[in-house]
């Protein structure tokens, strides 16, 4: 929605700049005047919350990088040095590690909002796909970041996950050596993970810019899924949504601060306070909670299918689970966007949510006993949801009648 810009430079200096680099015009058009549906609920605040998370991680991360040493004999101690000696280091480090968890909590809410309200549907397919790309890049960033403290989980998590690349036929083993920079996870791996961990967040920032650009072409979706029809449906982004987003962000900071100041290690694993030891494998190798669902999918394929061995099968399933997200706009063809008007879809959606939480839980359990079967069922449902249920629903579902417009749907709801 690149409307005709109404920005008028206030003084000579502003006009001079506007003629050369219309940054102020751009900011006003996209961050202040941008017409936004007036019925957005709080699930829509998580985009701004995510930007805040990215900024927090980059700022604390750059600070940590001033004191961290990416060398296998020194890394663990350098992180402790930050906690013990650097001014404010204990809190800065805690904010960064808790921040990673909060980042994922927010991104899962953001993604599930998109899944429920059909934000991935035309004409927002590219917006959605950029989002999936951001999500995958975030996972890579977090994975590499977790290796840096060089604890037992850092090392063994790196070993297990880099190992999956050896599953690829023919090029697997050379590829594994290429990624690790050696025959095992060692100093070469740590150094390059540090470099890439510093780089990737800026790639994410660039993707976020594209993400918002792609959003501003069609404009925001809204809880009814009915497109904006006139200016009666919208309000200016500033001050309505700037202040609402800011409020939500402050509320978000409350559990963030709770964890960072009072329970900084509760989301982590005690074994990561043991220095990495290539001779001793921890009893249970567990990734951080936010990677658990995908870890479950990877582990669940413990059987061979034709010429594909179980290890490769797991890798295909894990990457497949992300690809299926990418192609979602072409799987769900229902012309109705919002789950609010899709009664059948709602049941399967909430089952998907429960299923995803179950996948997370299972990832932390040993791959034994009844967990093995349940994991397979949950993985099956994950894929069935995208590949079978949504396409079928598109055809057979009888949606509820949609409101004529956004403003009609909120009639009589003025708060005085």
């Amino acid at each position: 929605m690149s409307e005709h810009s109404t920005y008028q430079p206030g003084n000579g200096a502003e006009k001079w700049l506007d003629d050369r680099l219309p940054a102020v015009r751009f900011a006003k058009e996209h961050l202040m005047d941008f017409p936004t549906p007036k019925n957005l609920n709080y699930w829509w605040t998580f985009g701004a919350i995510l930007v805040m998370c990215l900024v927090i991680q980059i700022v604390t991360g750059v600070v940590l990088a001033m004191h961290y040493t990416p060398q296998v004999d020194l890394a663990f101690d350098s992180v402790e040095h930050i906690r013990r000696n650097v001014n404010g280091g204990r809190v800065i480090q805690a904010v960064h590690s808790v921040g990673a968890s909060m980042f994922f909590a927010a991104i899962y809410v953001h993604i599930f909002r998109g899944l429920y309200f059909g934000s991935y549907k035309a004409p927002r397919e590219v917006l959605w796909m950029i989002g999936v790309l951001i999500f995958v890049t975030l996972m890579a960033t977090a994975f590499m970041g977790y290796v840096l403290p060089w604890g037992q989980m850092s090392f063994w998590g790196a070993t297990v996950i880099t190992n999956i690349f050896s599953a690829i036929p023919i090029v697997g083993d050379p590829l594994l050596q290429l990624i690790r920079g050696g025959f095992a996870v060692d100093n070469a791996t740590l150094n390059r993970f540090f470099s890439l961990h510093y780089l990737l967040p800026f790639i994410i920032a660039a993707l976020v810019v594209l993400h918002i650009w792609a959003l501003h072409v069609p404009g925001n979706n809204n809880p009814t899924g009915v497109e904006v029809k006139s200016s009666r449906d919208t309000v200016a982004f500033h001050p309505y949504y700037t202040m609402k987003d800011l409020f939500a962000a402050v509320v978000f900071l409350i559990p963030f601060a709770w964890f960072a100041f009072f329970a900084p290690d509760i989301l982590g694993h005690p074994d990561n306070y043991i220095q990495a030891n290539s001779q001793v494998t921890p009893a249970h190798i567990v990734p951080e909670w936010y990677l658990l669902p995908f870890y479950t999918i990877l582990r669940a394929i413990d059987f061979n299918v034709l010429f594909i061995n179980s290890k490769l099968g797991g890798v295909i399933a894990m990457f497949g689970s992300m690809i299926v997200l990418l192609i979602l706009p072409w799987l769900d063809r229902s012309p109705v966007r919002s789950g609010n008007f899709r009664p059948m879809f709602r049941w399967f959606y909430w089952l998907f949510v429960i299923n995803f939480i179950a996948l997370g839980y299972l990832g932390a359990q040993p791959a034994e006993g009844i967990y093995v079967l349940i994991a397979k069922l949950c993985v099956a449902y994950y894929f069935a949801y995208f590949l079978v249920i949504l396409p079928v629903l598109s055809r057979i579902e009888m949606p509820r009648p949609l409101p004529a417009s956004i403003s009609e749907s909120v009639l009589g709801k003025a708060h005085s």
Partner: protein
Amino acid sequence: MIKTKTIFAALAVVGALLAVPAFAAEAESGGDHAVEIEKQNWTFGGIFGTYDEHQLQRGFQVFREVCSNCHSARLLAFRNLSEEGGPGFSEEQVKALAAEYQIADPTAEGGRRPGVAADTWPSPFASEQEARDANGGALPPDFSVLAKARGVTDPFPFWVFNYFTAYQEGGVDYIYNLLTGYHEQPPEGVELTPGRHYNEVYPSHQIAMAPPLQDGLVDYVEGEEGVSVPETLDQYARDVSAFLMWVAEPHLVSRKEAGFRVLLFLVLFAGLMWATKNRIWKGIEH
């Protein structure tokens, strides 16, 4: 249309399938039979937790006289002992203490010199191999972050409650239980590997460390207020565990104090933002 009841039934089945194994197998997930870790009351637990200076001093004495003969604490600096939020020794005391130890220093004559406050606790052994040789092949773990390198796993739903109580004392609960969890004789049917001792909470139950504490082992230096505590194994275990928590988290007190102020600020600010947002949105149908 699928009946609502059917959906609920399906969900209930899924929920049960998850919950039952969770309850039954939670103990198993520790990797062995159900280990009962009795949680203790620690002065530093919870959002208002602080260290008890006297307890830290006693714990330090236990560490120094008993544990440091085998265990290193390479990230503990002598100067930490006089810093705020810790045992509260004076700088003079710390200087005198440090001077009692010989520190390896390649620039010093003979390669060793008396310690200063800036030095870190010297290891009792010159190398890992020496440490193993002196301890039947087992390596006594370093104490620097040991209290954070151990933990307890609670079954559902108790681990959820831990998030709300900000439970971070799993490590010291484990350590206390371990120190007080030795059995004179192993239970029926358990054969002890030579050189090992039966311990209730150690994962394999056979620990290489001999029971390090016993009643009356350490003659506690009397504190300033003349507060005296029983010189029992239980007390030593409590005090040295608290000391280990401080070694692992020396800034715990200032962190929690800052956290309280930050949370108060955020709640206040959220309230103001809430009012601001409502004022701005007044009159808009949404």
